[in-house]
Structures are given as structure tokens and as C-alpha cells.
């Protein structure tokens, strides 16, 4: 039974690799990367065998704790990444719980991350080889640590399943988790500065961690090596108790998760409340705008695009701080305008086959275009104005305001025109509504990136007149040229917008059923 589960795991991995060459390439690159890290880690651990015990203890405990923490945090971050042996799919088979637990653990240990962790953990034997007792303890504790990693990650996954079964949480968490990822660069810089300052504190941190469930298994051989058998025994007990406790929790939460399937959030409003449909004009275009705005709020795939709004200013502020001038911050408004305007470049792909409603109801292409852009404008225009004014206020360069508004107008209006055309043409694979918005749909990646860059390129071309004027106004510090940028941005942008809606609307009138065919094909492929 256990062997069957492990075999199944490798079979699924092999088949998913067979499906796509690019996925195989990605896995090979990942494996090379993993092997590289493993090689460095093993070499380091062996080398530590020749270092002072104090240093070896600090490094092993800190690194080991980080590894355990990583294992436990990853399933929280990456919903739906490791679904190879999703317990929910095994529920139909008559498996006793204990066998299921052993099988899932074995499959976890034998996965790529599990193997890498195991080898690195066993390499600590080399670190403590000078003291035979410690080396033996290291072997035992390595097994204990790896099991803690695997079981811990499974426990967290099983626990989060019950949280994930609330749709609202699942959708939100997927987005919130992304913010620290984008800010990773600044965070790492900040952390490394902090660590450089507090290198003296590290042994203390390691000592504290060694008494915690994260560090205990790694600290046992270290204590034995310096002859502190009492501490070693206690820490071994801590490690053992941690593992036992995790198994108990896992067993319990798996039992719960298996009988309570993913269910709805159950959000409901009172009868007669049609929200934005009662506010926006009662025309087809108005209804489409109301629908799109409702989706901006309820569908995380749209809300995700708003992440750039807080992030761009933060990133720009960070980098301009490093450069010692706040000038860079002024670019926040135009950049956000650019990114937000292009957010809809493949809007119909997000509709999926629900787009059939528009076709069946005989919606004119023009109304469809205007409605979608109006929803975007209602969100983007106030945000862009706010950010632009705010950035100018912070950097104290009010004279640049007309020029910046000109660039924003060129980006927003031109972008509206570009997406009106592009989204009537492009159908790219996107995650379905309700999936993790960052999960890439099968077949996505290359085509998506290509078409996204194409729309970026077109919009950049359309922005050339305004951009040239903006640069000139900066070079000559000319307020007049700044105002000219504003006029050109608005006038040319409006022209591009009208043309875009015309072309996109006409295309939609002609080709909407053909788009639906592609949407259907995509759904069956997914």
C-alpha cells in the first residue's frame, strides 16, 4: 500500500513532465539548482567538521531551523502546488488512516525536496564525526528532523485545507502572500544589513532556537559533542515530542478534512440589492461596467492587478532612497497608469465561457468595450491622480505636475484603446475563476508573456509623442512644455481610445462566436 502510494507519486510526476517539454526543462533547471545548493550545503557541513564546535553549533542550528520553518510555511504560501497526492482524492479508497499517514510521509520524503533535505541532514554526521557519539546522534536526529519537516508540512497543509474550504479566505490569501514576495528584494537588503550589524547576537539566537521544536533535533549532537548529555537528552525529548504531536494533529485534521469537502463561503446579501447595477446607467454598456466592477471586487484575478498600486511607490521610494534623490518617485503615477490600463489586455479570457452570455444576448461590440473600459477607468483614474499628486507632494516638485498628468493621460487613454483591441483578439490561458490567481494555467507562460509584451510595446509606441515632450520639458526645465505634454496626452490619448473602441467593437461584432470556440477549447484543455 505504502509502496503503491510512492509509486503513484512518481508516476504522476513522470506523466506531468511528459505533457510539456518546457515543464521538463523547468524541472531540470530546478534540479540542477537544487543539486548546486545541496553540493554547497554538504561541502559546508563537512567543512564545519574542522571548525570550532561553537561555530558549527550556531550554523547547523540556525540553518536547520530555517529548513524546518521553510517546510512548514511553504504549503501555506503555495496553495495547490503539491497536489500529487492530495488526500482528498484518496478518500474514495478503503485505506486505513495509519497506512495513509505512512504512505504520505514516505512519498513526501522521497520527493525532490525531501531527498535534498535528507541528504543535507545526513551530512551533519560529517560535521560531528570528531565525536563518535555525536555522529551517531546526528544520524538519528537527521531522520527525526526530516520526518518533522515532512510531517509538519503535511499537517499545515491539512489544517489549511479546512481554512481553504472557505472560498473567500482562499482567494484573499493567495494575493496577500504575493506582497512580501515582491518586496523580497528590499526585505533581503534590510535583513542582511540587520544581520551584519548583529552577527554577535547569532550564537544567542541559535541557543534559544535549540530549545525550540525547530532547532532541537539539530542541537542534540552539538550538546553531545561538548559533553552536555543532560541538555542533549532534553532536546531529544523535545524533538521527539514535536514529531509525535505533529502526527497526532495531522491525523486529526486529515480525518476532519476528508469528511468536510471544499464548501462555499456562503456570503449572501438581501433580496433586492443589486449593488452597482442600481447605480450605473441602465444601458448595456452601464450593465457591463457594473458587472466588471463587481468582479474587480469579488474575483481575485482582477484584484490582483491592484497590487501594483501600493508596491510601485514603495519600490520606487526604496530605490530612490538608495540613490539619494526622490526624483524617481515621480514616475510612480505614469507607471501605475501604464500597468493598470493594460491590466485588461485579455479581459475576455477572464470571462471564460461566460462570455457566451454577451453573444447570446446580442450585445454590440462597442457597448462591450465601453463597459469594460469604464469599469477600469472608475478604478484607475482616481488612483492614478491620487498617486501622482501624492508623489509630487512627497518629492516637492509641483512644477512637474502637468507633465506627469500628461503622461498618465497618455498611458491611461492610450492603454484603454490598446486593450479594447487586444482583448477582442487575444485568448490566452488564464487561471479559472476561483483558482489561485497566481497559478499559471496549463499552456500559459510563453504565449501569455509574448502577447502581454506585444500590448506593452504598442502602448509604448502610442505614448511616444507625450513621452518626447515630457523628456524635453525635463531637459529644458520648461513648464510650458509640461503643459503641452498634458494637452497632447489628453488629445492624442482620446483619439487612440476612440479608435481602439471602434476597431475592437467591430472585431467583436464579427468574431465573437469564434472567440467563444477558443474559450471552450481552452476550458476543455485545462
Amino acid at each position: 500500500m505504502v509502496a503503491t502510494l510512492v509509486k503513484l507519486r512518481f508516476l504522476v510526476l513522470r506523466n506531468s513532465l511528459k505533457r510539456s517539454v518546457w515543464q521538463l526543462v523547468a524541472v531540470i533547471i530546478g534540479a540542477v539548482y537544487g543539486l548546486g545548493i545541496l553540493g554547497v550545503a554538504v561541502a559546508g557541513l563537512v567543512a564545519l567538521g574542522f571548525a570550532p564546535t561553537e561555530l558549527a553549533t550556531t550554523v547547523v542550528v540556525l540553518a536547520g531551523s530555517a529548513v524546518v520553518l521553510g517546510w512548514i510555511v511553504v504549503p501555506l504560501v503555495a496553495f495547490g502546488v503539491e497536489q500529487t497526492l492530495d488526500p482528498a482524492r484518496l478518500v474514495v479508497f478503503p485505506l486505513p488512516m495509519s497506512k495513509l499517514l505512512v504512505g504520505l510521509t514516505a512519498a513526501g520524503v522521497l520527493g525532490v525536496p525531501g531527498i535534498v533535505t535528507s541528504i543535507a541532514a545526513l551530512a551533519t554526521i560529517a560535521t560531528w564525526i570528531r565525536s563518535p557519539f555525536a555522529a551517531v546522534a546526528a544520524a538519528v536526529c537527521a531522520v527525526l528532523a526530516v520526518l518533522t519537516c515532512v510531517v509538519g508540512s503535511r499537517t499545515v497543509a491539512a489544517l489549511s485545507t479546512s481554512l481553504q474550504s472557505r472560498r473567500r479566505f482562499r482567494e484573499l490569501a493567495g494575493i496577500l502572500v504575493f506582497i512580501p514576495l515582491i518586496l523580497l528584494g528590499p526585505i533581503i537588503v534590510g535583513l542582511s544589513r540587520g544581520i551584519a550589524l548583529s552577527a554577535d547576537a547569532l550564537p544567542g539566537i541559535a541557543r534559544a532556537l535549540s530549545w525550540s521544536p525547530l532547532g532541537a533535533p539539530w542541537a542534540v549532537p552539538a550538546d553531545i559533542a561538548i559533553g552536555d548529555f543532560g541538555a542533549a537528552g532534553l532536546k531529544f525529548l523535545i524533538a521527539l515530542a514535536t514529531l509525535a504531536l505533529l502526527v497526532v494533529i495531522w491525523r486529526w485534521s486529515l480525518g476532519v478534512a476528508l469528511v468536510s469537502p471544499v464548501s462555499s463561503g456562503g456570503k449572501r446579501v438581501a433580496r433586492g440589492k443589486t449593488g452597482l447595477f442600481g447605480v450605473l446607467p441602465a444601458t448595456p454598456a452601464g450593465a457591463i461596467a457594473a458587472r466588471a466592477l463587481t468582479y474587480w471586487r469579488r474575483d481575485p484575478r482582477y484584484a490582483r492587478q491592484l497590487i501594483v498600486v501600493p508596491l510601485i511607490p514603495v519600490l520606487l521610494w526604496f530605490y530612490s532612497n538608495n540613490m539619494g534623490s526622490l526624483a524617481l518617485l515621480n514616475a510612480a503615477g505614469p507607471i501605475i497608469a501604464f500597468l493598470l490600463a493594460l491590466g485588461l489586455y485579455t479581459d475576455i479570457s477572464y470571462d471564460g465561457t461566460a462570455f457566451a452570455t454577451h453573444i447570446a444576448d446580442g450585445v454590440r461590440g462597442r457597448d462591450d468595450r465601453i463597459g469594460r473600459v469604464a469599469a477600469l477607468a472608475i478604478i484607475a483614474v482616481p488612483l492614478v491622480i491620487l498617486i501622482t499628486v501624492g508623489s509630487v507632494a512627497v518629492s516637492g516638485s509641483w512644477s512637474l505636475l502637468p507633465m506627469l498628468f500628461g503622461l498618465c493621460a497618455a498611458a491611461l487613454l492610450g492603454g484603454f484603446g490598446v486593450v479594447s483591441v487586444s482583448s477582442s483578439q487575444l485568448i490566452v490561458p488564464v487561471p479559472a475563476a476561483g483558482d489561485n490567481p497566481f497559478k499559471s494555467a496549463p499552456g500559459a507562460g510563453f504565449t501569455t508573456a509574448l502577447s502581454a509584451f506585444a500590448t506593452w510595446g504598442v502602448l509604448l509606441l502610442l505614448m511616444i509623442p507625450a513621452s518626447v515632450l515630457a523628456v524635453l520639458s525635463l531637459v529644458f526645465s520648461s513648464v510650458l512644455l509640461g503643459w503641452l505634454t498634458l494637452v497632447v496626452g489628453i488629445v492624442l490619448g482620446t483619439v487612440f481610445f476612440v479608435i481602439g473602441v471602434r476597431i475592437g467593437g467591430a472585431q467583436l461584432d464579427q468574431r465573437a462566436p469564434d472567440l467563444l470556440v477558443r474559450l471552450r477549447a481552452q476550458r476543455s484543455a485545462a
Partner: protein
Amino acid sequence: MSDHSAPVPAAAPPAMSAPTAVPGPAAASGPASAGPPALQLTGLTKRFGEKVAVDDLSLTVPVGSFYGLVGPNGAGKTTTLSMATGLLRPDAGQSLVHGVDMWRDPITAKSLVGNLSDGVKLFDRLTGEQLVTYNGLLFGLDRAEVAERVGDLLKLLDLEQAAGTLVVDYSAGMTKKIALACALVHAPRLLVLDEPFESVDPVSAANIRDILTGYVQNGGTVIVSSHVMDLVQRMCDHVAVVAHGRVLVAGTVDEVRGSSTLEDRFVELVGGRTHAEGPEWLRRS
């Protein structure tokens, strides 16, 4: 398959042009029969690569009829209805809705049709009430009119309790019902319903049947695709049997079934019934 399907349609269509006095609702809407048929499909053809999904299919649906479209899985029912309602471009052929060409003048034609299609999603992040309102507004109705009709439809389909719930949280049967409400909101003259009774509970199905029957009695026309023969026999006055993208036989239900039941006649026409009892180990339990 073509060997036995060829002669049948040649014989069947003429028979249906003179319906007998049996179907009550169709006869009740007598005056409308003077104009063009509610739906006329002529020579519809669709290929998906090598596979011919719909093969030169012609069908006439008289005004005021309750028309059943039956056929085995993969017969081309959904493809046919998609082409008839403007969701799928035919390779050849024509679809006329009350004389309006669906592919020449789609906006006028679509305003005459209420469509419930199988296998497409709804905008399911809206509440049920919002979704029906959305459809009403897309058809160009004004706000007060939409609000009144949405209220009526929710009541009619017993969805008032669920009006404020997101459609994504609906059960399969409730989703069908809200889709039906969306198809009805603009008071179409022709209803095209693809598998409307799939996963609908018996009480709701009976209610929907009553609504549709009433709609037909008031002069509307309904086409329903289904593979539940019993339902079609009880509910519809006309029926067409489709297989391999062709109409095998079409006419009033009584003409098509003759002296046997519709189900027996269907099996006889379509074939493929096997009488194996399954492997021995499966019969032991």
C-alpha cells in the same frame, strides 16, 4: 450509420407539415402559423477537424410548438442549437428565427431568442438577482421593467430565498433555474433550452414544465434538447431524433413514436442497444 439514416428523413419531414389535431397548445396558437416558422434551420453543417459534428441538418420548428430534440450523446444536439442561436458559426447553412437570419442580422434575431446553453459558464460571481438583472439590461430593458421582471422570475422559479447568494454557490439545479430566468427575462418569442432538466430536482422540473407549457399556450415556441425520452414524450408536441449530426426523423410526437413508446422508437432508430449482462464477477454481488 448512413445506410439506414438516409431514407428516413426523406419520408418523415413531409408528414409533419400537416399536424393532426392531437397537440392542443400548437393548435391553440393557430393564427401565428401564417407567418414564417419560429425557427428554420437549413443545411446546417459544422466540422471539427476530421469529425463532422452536424451534417447538412435541416429542421423546421413551427410557431407555438413545444419541440423536443433528442439524440444519443455526441449526436450534435448542442452544436446544432449553438449554431441556431448565434453562439457557433456554421460552416454552411442558415438559421432563421421568425424569418430573421441569425448570422446576417444577429442583434434582431437574438432579441427574439431566449437561450439556455449547456456547457458554458455564467457570470457566477454575481448574485442570482444581479445575474438576471444583468441579462435584462444587456437586452436593453429599462431599470424599472427589469426589476419587476426579475422579481416575477425569481418567484416563479422559487429562487427568492437564494436571490442574494452568489451563483457560484448555487447547486447544479439552482444554476439551471437561474439560467432559465436569464433566458426568459426579455420575453423572447422562441426559447432554446439545451438540457434544461439536467440535475434539476423533480419538483422544480415539474414547475419548469408548467412554466414552459404556459409559455407555449400563450403563443411562444420552445425547443428543448434532452435525452430523457419519457420527459419529451410527456411534455413536447413535436420531436426530432438526431444522430450523427443528422435528423433521423421529425414530426409530432405521435407520428414519430407510432404505436410504441418514444424510447423504444428512439432505440430502434439510433441502435446501439446491447444486451450483455456484464462480466460474471459483477453479477455475483
